[in-house]
């Protein structure tokens, strides 16, 4: 499809390897704070891959929502729910079974990807970058109803989270 390995591909593979190593760190490291930090690195890798795919809008959203808001929420929850008195096992009893199931899933997915013939554009120059304006047009015309529903859902969910996490008056 292409003449050799381009610079974009090299950058893509560097980002992919960083992202996957960080993801493995998230699920295997023994310290929960390190796991959260690996998660940030993994998110940054995904944002970089969005940039390689020429979708700057999603990369920005990824960094703004995931990279800041979600990560801060998760760090707060980790700190608030840390059991202080005893060191805790971080893995359940069914760990070997879980690893085997994940490997089986991976084999099935990669088998499906390899077995399929994908119709891709002839050359990478045929792929046009998707501009911000096109995305905005689509969201605010075709997808306006889902967009409003998502907004309502988000505010309901955040209100519900505050309700759940706030202490009851009659509790104590």
């Amino acid at each position, binding site marked *: 499809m292409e003449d050799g390995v381009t610079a974009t*591909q090299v950058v*893509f593979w560097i980002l992919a390897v960083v*992202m996957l190593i960080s*993801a493995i760190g*998230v*699920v295997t490291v023994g310290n*929960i704070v390190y*796991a*959260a930090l690996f998660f940030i690195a*993994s998110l940054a890798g*995904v944002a970089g*891959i*969005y940039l*390689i*795919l020429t*979708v700057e*809008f*999603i990369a920005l*959203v990824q960094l703004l*929502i*995931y990279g800041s808001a*979600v990560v801060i*929420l*998760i760090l707060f*929850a980790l700190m608030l*729910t840390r*059991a202080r008195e005893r060191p*805790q096992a*971080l893995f*359940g009893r*069914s760990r070997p*079974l*879980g*690893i085997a*199931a*994940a490997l089986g*899933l*991976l084999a099935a997915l*990669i088998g499906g*990807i390899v077995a399929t013939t*994908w119709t891709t*554009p002839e050359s*990478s120059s*045929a*792929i046009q970058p*998707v501009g911000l304006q*096109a*995305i905005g047009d*689509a*969201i605010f015309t075709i997808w306006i109803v*889902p967009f409003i529903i*998502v907004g309502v*859902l988000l505010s309901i*969910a*955040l209100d519900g*989270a*505050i309700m*759940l*996490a706030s*202490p009851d008056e009659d509790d104590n």
Partner: protein
Amino acid sequence: MPPLEHILVVNAVLFAIGAMGVLTRRNAVLILLSVELMLNAVSLNMVAFAVYGHVDFGNITGIVFAFFIIVIAAAEVALALGIVVRTFRNRATANVDEVNLLKW
């Protein structure tokens, strides 16, 4: 641009790593982190299909879907962490295998 298959394989590996985390971790917040990894893999897949199908179909539905996935994931994280904090206050644990009131 990397070929579509390479992106799909990377996303499959990321999805499987997230699944492994969901199946092996016992801390609820770490399980949530692994679910976020899986969601990331899926939305990256959608963007890849949208970008590579752009020439043929002329739409950007996949990109809009990735945007919606990220927003819904934010709502989900907020709610789930509220539940985890609540559980920790009531039962003094954030481990999913110790929250077994409904299990028999």
